[in-house]
């Protein structure tokens, strides 16, 4: 016999919000979010009041006004009659340029140094340790300034190239001039038919990719290994060189020449770009080296031994067994190194490289007095760039990560 007792029909009491575990976490969250919102509202009101006290409004109209200043390194058309918005675009492209170049060199350097540091050769391993510890433990700004100062002080002035008894001369068959204003390299001149040449080159890249797929598939099916490297190398060079001569040499080089105050006619890689690029690459490369080393060490020795037992040679063991597994350890921290490099490029101001921090965040703000708007835009740009980089790298990470079946 069971007596059914009614569940105590108690109403909701206010104290339950604190003492009843069913509601407590909810209460805490509601109270916390109220405080956070109050805090945000306070900050917002603070900005509004202070702007009012300063007699300023919040307006992005300045982006459409004439900038009035010149920028030395421009990847797009720009003059002092262009707008502040255009100047910001020039800066953004300069930031992206140095970040892109920096990421590539840092990755190459990092992988090289990371693998070499594990070498059994004592000298090589120690040299790499010196590189990694040296660059990792000294502030980036110092490296930027050191490289810039060395290039400015030790390289000859353009003037030194002039005259009969010039104290400096161009290198590489008179095609490259290293000066204290930057390195001048020949510029390509795209003649008629050069479009076809580019198309041939792109097609040969596609051919390399297709061939590699084919070779991989064939190896899976028959076990036969094709000389992939040599054929790829041939595909890379032969069609383009053939096309170059068949089309009658459509692309020629324009060598830099001393004219007036400076070299003209070539492409100028400014000291500021080179200093920033190399300092960022060397610094971030040292971190990437450690990430690569950690990734390789994370793969147990048993994997190598098993591969050897199957008769794989050491380089194939590395490329087929170790690296694919190491990559999934390497990629996630590598993403944050790329983000670091991109954000660190804002140190460009130290050497006068005209990145977005120097144009929009520097001169434009200074000329227009729009600190708040400028800094917000700058923040949004870096945020967006970082999110795009990590998004793209996450896609890659998903393709190499351990597939769970």
């Amino acid at each position: 016999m069971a007596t059914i007792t009614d569940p105590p029909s108690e109403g909701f009491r206010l104290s339950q919000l604190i003492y009843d575990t069913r509601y407590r976490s909810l209460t805490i969250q509601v109270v916390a979010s109220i405080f956070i919102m109050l805090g945000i509202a306070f900050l917002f009101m603070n900005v509004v009041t202070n702007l009012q006290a300063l007699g300023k409004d919040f307006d992005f109209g300045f982006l459409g006004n004439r900038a009035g200043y010149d920028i030395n390194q421009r990847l797009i058309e720009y003059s002092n009659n262009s707008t502040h918005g255009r100047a910001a675009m020039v800066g953004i492209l300069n930031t992206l340029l140095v970040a892109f170049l920096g990421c590539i060199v840092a990755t190459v350097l990092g992988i090289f140094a990371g693998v070499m540091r594990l070498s059994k050769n004592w000298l090589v391993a120690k040299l790499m340790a010196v590189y990694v510890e040296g660059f990792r433990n000294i502030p980036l700004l110092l490296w930027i300034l050191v490289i810039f100062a060395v290039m400015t002080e030790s390289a000859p002035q353009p003037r030194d190239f002039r005259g009969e008894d010039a104290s400096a001369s161009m290198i590489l068959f008179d095609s490259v001039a290293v000066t204290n204003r930057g390195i001048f390299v020949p510029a390509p001149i795209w003649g008629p038919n050069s479009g076809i040449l580019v198309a041939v080159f792109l097609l040969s890249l596609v051919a390399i990719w297709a061939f590699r797929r084919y070779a991989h598939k064939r190896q899976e099916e028959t076990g036969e290994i094709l000389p992939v490297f040599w054929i790829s190398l041939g595909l890379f060079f032969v069609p383009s060189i053939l096309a170059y001569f068949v089309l009658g040499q459509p692309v020629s080089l324009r060598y830099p020449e001393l004219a007036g105050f400076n070299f003209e006619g070539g492409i100028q890689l400014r000291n500021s770009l080179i200093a920033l690029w190399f300092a960022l690459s060397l610094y971030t490369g040292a971190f990437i080296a450690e990430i690569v080393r950690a990734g390789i060490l994370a793969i147990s020795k048993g994997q190598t031994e098993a591969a050897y037992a199957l008769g794989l040679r050491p380089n194939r063991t590395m490329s087929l067994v170790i690296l694919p597994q190491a990559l999934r350890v390497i990629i996630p921290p590598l993403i944050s190194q790329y983000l670091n490099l991109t954000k660190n490029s804002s140190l460009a101001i130290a050497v006068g490289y005209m990145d977005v921090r120097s144009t929009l965040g520097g001169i434009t703000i200074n000329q227009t007095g729009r600190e708040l708007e400028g800094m917000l835009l700058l923040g949004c740009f870096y945020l967006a760039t970082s999110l795009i980089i990590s998004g793209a790298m996450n896609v890659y990470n998903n393709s190499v990560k351990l597939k769970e079946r």
Partner: protein
Amino acid sequence: MKKSVFYGTLAVAAVAAGTLSAQTLAEVQERGSLNCGVSTGLTGFAAPDASGEWQGFDVAMCRAVAAAVLGDAMAVEFVPTTGQTRFTALASGEIDMLARNTTWTFSRDVDLGFEFVGVNYYDGQGFMVPRDLGVSSAMELDGATVCIQTGTTTELNLADFFSSNGMSYEPVPIETNAEAQQQYLAGACDVYTTDASGLAATRATFEDPSAHVILPEIISKEPLGPLVRHGDNQWGDIVRWTLNGLVSAEELGITSANVAELATGTDNPEINRMLGTEGEYGAMLGLDGDWMVRVISSVGNYGEIFEGNIGENTPIGLARGLNAQWTDGGLLYSPPFR
């Protein structure tokens, strides 16, 4: 107050909280020192000497204001600012006044919300080149690489000058005068451009000043003067009339040597009004009657400041030129103390 500073900094550094309205005088007196923005180092205008003490033409302006409001010309906290940081420093209240070779322009006065209290140096933008470059006129500079301090009016003048003369150039933006000097001497730029007074001051510090020439062209008007924030008229008046007092003192022959004697009373009513023996001019500014006596006895009059820091007997060797009294054919013309 502490709390509001904390939250304000959190909000946006550029609009840091703090009292931005009409209390600068009270704040300075309570603090016991004047926060004065100067350049990061330009010999003759503002630079620390061998013993680390700031010296120069702009520094004297800061000291004069400190003498007026605090009674002690040494009670100045110097804040070195670059061309890019100076306006933010002033707008946010980090400094009470800015005396840093700053050009008085419409947009700075009106749009940026500052108040230029006057002109303490009439200048213009010039060019300096190494003598062995063989250039004798700015019109021959087509294609040259030019070092400029970024965030200044010189940057804009330069762009206008080259484009209106159909010439091209390569700008090398640089943060401070010291860096510009290093780049210029290393030959990383052919030309250094800034205000002519700054060029003379920079050249004076070179190992061999005679190896560099300042080109004859002056491409702009650069009236340099001290400035304060908009909105505190009392403080603006104090700085303005300290400057006017320095100029008037030279005109009236009041020097640091004779000011004590003149302060006992003279036959000239204007001197008496300035030095506080007649009328209540100091009290109208919120100061005491001796304010101008302290200013002149500690830093001298305009002419003494000029000769002591940048005049013809100093290594910088600038002539008075436009900066002579109006009675001597210059532009210095102080409104009367009346």
